[in-house]
């Protein structure tokens, strides 16, 4: 079953009248948005549109059902952007979906993810009440930070009505440098050297290659006149201080196309499940050991702090994640069971659930 | 901070105290600089807490006795003063408060005996020397307060260096560039008379002529520090008569505590007939390092071998008198010498006058912290501008079974000068 509110009042009525609701945006992350056994889809796509955008303010407010594509376009007109590279934009991801699923692309590395840019939320909770948290200014310490709490909440606490974000000026130009390392150890060694180096990178991805080697992919953004010097410096750093064996520089359209592909998860291929696992660089070898056979395609973003695993079998991965004590969230895959592996802090989340949705209008957390 | 202190109750110092309290905004910046807070982590043992307690006492909401333990633990190191953005004169406050509270507090018999002993012995070199030499210090303390014995005895060498009385006058070498008077001090002359001799030689080497008024005595700052105001005044008066500030370019001190104490003569005599005379005197007081740095000193010769030294800032130079660079400039000018900075350098070593005797545990912790920081530098020697710090560091190094040479800044300089001759 599917419901489609077109106004706030309708939304509130629908929540009052139904239960087991699952708010859904563009449906680009089926494991989170497809309704399974008895759940009712609450299609939020009609509550859409940019409500407020003042370029001079570097903030905007939009309905949760707004396609991110539209927002990205509006921002681009003023040279502004969401630095965390919201993924699946071309496929129709909505702003609400990005928040609920906590998805960020490779650009998350430098300035942070969804949580670091969201500043306000209005949502209807399980008591059908319209609740606001945060505000519309870039800095605000009044009240509990509900906007941040909602990041990754997977529609379990309420249905977003609108969301406010801060944005940044977009770098005027980009260049990407891809360096190849003989193995995981040397690649991780390079990440740790780069961590304390002065070189600033907007993106730092780690990609396993078919032959057991790894490549590190750094993207630099900034003023175009400074970029050639910076990329050269990074290059010499890699050869002098790390075990890089070769490299390639990717510019202009090729650069843009590369990152569009990456952020659309094109590399994950079709037919596989896609799982996000927060990790820290030092634990990557451990994960690599256990998922090697399970996940034919993998990518690490944010300087080795997020693992994206394309797997065929969620159950096996669940078991493996439990053994290495790493939580995961499924984006592509069978519906109904988005959270796998351990669930640190879930008891606290359940308490909040009890406050916002005491009668279980939305799915269990 | 708001207060309801009846200023008139507290004589000439009431105003000083009220002003300090009023300008405190309770922001807590001073916590970071306070050694007792670092050790104990309690609000009552922080400058902010102490100011608050003093306020409550002066407002007559709290008894002197209740507040006393926490105020007694204050080292008087003045570390809190330079860190305070609001300009609270904690130094003036605590000295004034102690002068007010001391006569009123009840002390145990042993406590007051010990204090009397300190007050009647320390400031008088001949008595102090006799007391130490005859082992009386030990005995007196044993009888008076056995539990505090260790600290005191640990600091006093059993065999004292030979007394070398200073001449009334010491000529300048070469062309005379300046004329100064020297405060010879009390405890220091007994424990290490060479510091004064080194001072005379270094000054002379730089064309400075020195008078050493023979009628001078202890500067009185220890007495001020512990709230024995009348004794302090008596000692200060003696010096006001002995020195002739108008006839010299500066009154030189080579002990941090004496310098900062004499700079406060004005406050000591606030509202009294001697006030302006005391102010004039205070203005002439200069630490030897500042004087030389300003005068422009003769470059010393190279040390025979390379030496790394850790410079320990004495609180009463750094915090009380704001003297940071002059000693460093002097030391850095010595060829073959490498100056190293001590971590958390502004933190008191725990020596602070009679603190070792009165708060042995905190003093011990601070001493150990300081020594650790010094050892961390890997320096081959330690230099400081205050005998108290040197003694404290020595004690705590010995406790760890480590021996490092310790120098007063002037002695190191003197040594360097003598390499040429």
């Amino acid at each position, binding site marked *: 079953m599917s419901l489609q509110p077109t106004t706030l009042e309708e939304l509130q009525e629908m929540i009052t009248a139904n239960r087991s609701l699952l708010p859904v945006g563009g449906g680009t992350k089926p494991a989170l948005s497809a309704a399974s056994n008895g759940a009712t889809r609450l299609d939020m796509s009609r509550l859409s549109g940019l409500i407020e955008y003042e370029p001079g303010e570097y903030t905007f407010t939009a309905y949760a059902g707004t396609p991110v594509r539209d927002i990205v376009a509006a921002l681009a007109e003023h040279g502004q952007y969401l630095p965390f590279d919201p993924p699946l934009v071309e496929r129709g991801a909505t702003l609400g979906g990005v928040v609920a699923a906590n998805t960020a692309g490779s650009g998350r590395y430098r300035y942070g993810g969804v949580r670091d840019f969201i500043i306000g939320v209005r949502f209807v909770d399980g008591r059908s009440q319209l609740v606001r948290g945060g505000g519309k200014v870039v800095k605000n310490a*009044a009240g509990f930070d509900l906007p941040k709490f909602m990041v990754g909440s997977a529609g379990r606490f309420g249905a977003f009505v609108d969301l406010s974000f801060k944005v940044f000026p977009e770098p005027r130009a980009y260049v990407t440098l891809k360096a190849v390392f003989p193995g995981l150890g040397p690649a991780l060694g390079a990440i740790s050297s780069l961590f304390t180096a002065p070189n600033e990178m907007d993106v730092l991805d780690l990609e396993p290659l078919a032959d057991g080697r790894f490549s590190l992919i750094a993207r630099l953004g900034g003023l175009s006149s400074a970029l050639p010097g910076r990329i050269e410096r990074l290059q010499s750093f890699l050869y002098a201080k790390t075990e890089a064996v070769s490299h390639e520089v990717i510019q202009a359209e090729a650069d843009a196309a590369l990152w569009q592909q990456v952020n659309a998860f094109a590399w994950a291929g079709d037919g596989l499940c896609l799982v996000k696992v927060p990790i*820290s660089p030092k634990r990557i070898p451990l994960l690599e050991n256990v998922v090697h056979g399970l996940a034919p395609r993998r990518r690490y973003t944010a300087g080795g702090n997020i693992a994206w695993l394309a797997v065929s079998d969620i159950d096996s991965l669940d078991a493996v994640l439990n053994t290495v004590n790493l939580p995961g969230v499924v984006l592509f895959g069978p519906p109904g069971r988005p959270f796998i592996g351990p669930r640190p802090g879930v008891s606290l989340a359940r308490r909040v659930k009890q406050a916002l949705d005491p009668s279980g209008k939305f799915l269990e957390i | 901070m708001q207060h309801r202190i009846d200023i008139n109750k507290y004589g000439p110092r009431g105003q000083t105290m009220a002003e300090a309290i009023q300008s405190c905004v309770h922001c807590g910046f001073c916590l970071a600089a306070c050694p007792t807070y670092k050790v104990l982590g309690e609000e009552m043992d922080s400058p902010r807490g102490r100011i608050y307690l003093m306020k409550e006492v002066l407002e007559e909401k709290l008894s002197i006795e209740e507040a006393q333990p926490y105020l007694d633990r204050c080292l008087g190191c003045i570390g809190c003063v330079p860190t305070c953005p609001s300009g609270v004169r904690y130094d003036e406050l605590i000295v004034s408060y102690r002068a007010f509270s001391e006569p009123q507090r009840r002390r145990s018999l042993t406590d007051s005996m010990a204090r009397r002993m300190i007050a009647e012995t320390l400031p008088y070199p001949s008595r102090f020397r006799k007391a130490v030499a005859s082992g009386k210090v030990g005995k007196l303390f044993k009888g008076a307060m056995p539990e505090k014995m260790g600290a005191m005895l640990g600091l006093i060498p059993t065999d004292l260096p030979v007394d070398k009385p200073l001449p009334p006058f010491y000529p300048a070498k070469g062309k005379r560039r300046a004329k100064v008077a020297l405060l010879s001090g009390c405890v220091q002359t007994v424990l290490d008379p060479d510091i004064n001799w080194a001072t005379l030689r270094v000054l002379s080497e730089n064309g400075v002529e020195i008078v050493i008024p023979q009628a001078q005595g202890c500067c009185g700052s220890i007495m001020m520090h512990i709230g024995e105001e009348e004794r302090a005044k008596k000692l200060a008066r003696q010096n006001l008569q002995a020195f002739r500030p108008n006839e010299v370019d500066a009154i030189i001190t080579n002990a941090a505590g004496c310098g900062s104490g004499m700079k406060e003569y004005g406050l000591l005599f606030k509202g009294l007939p001697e006030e302006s005379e005391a102010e004039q005197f205070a203005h002439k007081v200069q630490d030897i390092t500042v004087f030389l740095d300003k005068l422009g000193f003769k470059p010393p010769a190279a040390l025979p071998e390379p030496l790394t030294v850790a410079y320990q800032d004495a609180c009463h130079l750094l915090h009380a008198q704001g003297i940071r660079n002059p000693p460093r400039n002097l030391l850095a000018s010595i060829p073959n010498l490498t100056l190293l900075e001590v971590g958390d350098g502004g933190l008191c070593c725990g020596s602070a006058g009679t603190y070792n005797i009165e708060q042995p545990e905190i003093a011990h912790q601070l001493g150990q912290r300081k020594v650790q920081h010094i050892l961390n530098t890997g320096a081959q020697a330690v230099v400081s501008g205050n005998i108290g710090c040197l003694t404290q560091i020595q004690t705590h190094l010995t406790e760890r079974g480590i021996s490092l040479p310790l120098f007063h800044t002037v002695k190191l300089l003197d040594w360097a000068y003598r390499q040429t001759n």
Partner: protein
Amino acid sequence: MNDQPFFSALQKIYPKDRLLTQGVQLLAYESDALTSFQAKPTAVVIPETQEEAIETVRLCHQFGVPFVARGSGTSLSGGSLPIKDGIVIALNRLNHIKKLDPDQRIAVVEPGVVNLHISQAADRYNLYYAPDPSSQPVCTIGGNVAFNSGGAHCLKYGMTSNHILGLKVVLADGEVVEFGSESLEGVGVGPDLIGLFVGSEGLFGIALEITVRLLPKPELYRTVLAAYNDLETAGNAVAMVVASGLLPGAMEIMDRLAIKAAESGVDAGYPENAAALLIVELEGEAEQVETEFEEIMEVIKESGAYEVRVAKDAEQRLQIWKGRKGAFSSVGRLSPDYIVQDGVVPRSHLGKALAEIDRLSQEYGLDVANVFHAGDGNLHPLILFNGREPGALEHAEELAGKILKMCVDLGGSITGEHGVGMEKRRYMPAMFSEVDLETMKAIRRQIDPKEISNRGKMFPGGEAPALKMTGMHPLEAQGIISRE
């Protein structure tokens, strides 16, 4: 209720020197950095281990005794103000940096660790902890977490919340939960519990262990100090910099009165006679910064500054910042009392907001010094008054209220970083609807059913009924404590 069992239980945990109950000891904990409020707790405990802190919270829950966690007591909103009839849990001895891992750019610290000490410890790896409240030499990470504290350099990389990756907390009912990780992604899966806890002003419980993210020290700073003849022009200069599309690390403004305070407080050596000073700082990789610097100088030149200085070295940079960072406390030199406000306005309304503050200041006949994070529209008007004059505090508070109301009317917030605490509770309804507030309270009650954790803060009015003590406190009867 009978408190005897509670205190006997505390005595089992703490030796005498870490269970403070004497009047004089409690007195010292009466206020934080906002002295208009005072409340004496019944006891102060000083845990030295996480277990002691956990055990204490459990006892408080069991006996229904309210508690306030305390770091360095530098809250400007009465956040760490004790609760009458409650206890204070002073975290200053839980001050160990448990781990510092440069390879992952993280540190794991206890709550009593002083903000600046993390950067000092990380320095040898060329790393630092970015959020820099002016109080950073003294305020603790625990306090920063509770208030989501910010600082001058939070424009680019965010406030405390943006730098916390993992937390171990004891909730108000004694449950210990851990969430987040050593990953830059923090919680990453499921609702962002770190986001929820950071900024909750101690209403959920006590943070016991905090994993923070470290950043590489910027290779180069370019610090520009521009002097203006009036505040509005300086405000407009901020808008111009923002519009230029450059992303400075910090952008701060001080007005005439604040400059005067800073000068007398720390001898900052600022240009004379300036009505307003703008500090803009670029930071980052040298080549990028140098290029940005050329652009920013163009913008500043056109902004109407009558004098522009550029810090030539680290020392000059520090000198510029010294005045700014010491400005609050320095105001103590101008006036015996002040209230600091912390409202936020949309950046494009800065000029309007400042003009309105000026008007209100004249209307109320009270001096207001402005020193603020211009880059994110976070105002810090300091309202000067003399509390000795009857009614002066109330008068000043009324003015403060008007300023906050203006911020909300302009679409902003009543607090950017100092938190609501005790002081701004009553302005919450201006920002939030009854439902919003009720919802926040409902969350709080799920986590702290007895409302013992920092009771009475953040929410207007709704104090739980004070614990009724009948007769003498047992420790009072024993002569261990006394209350005036």
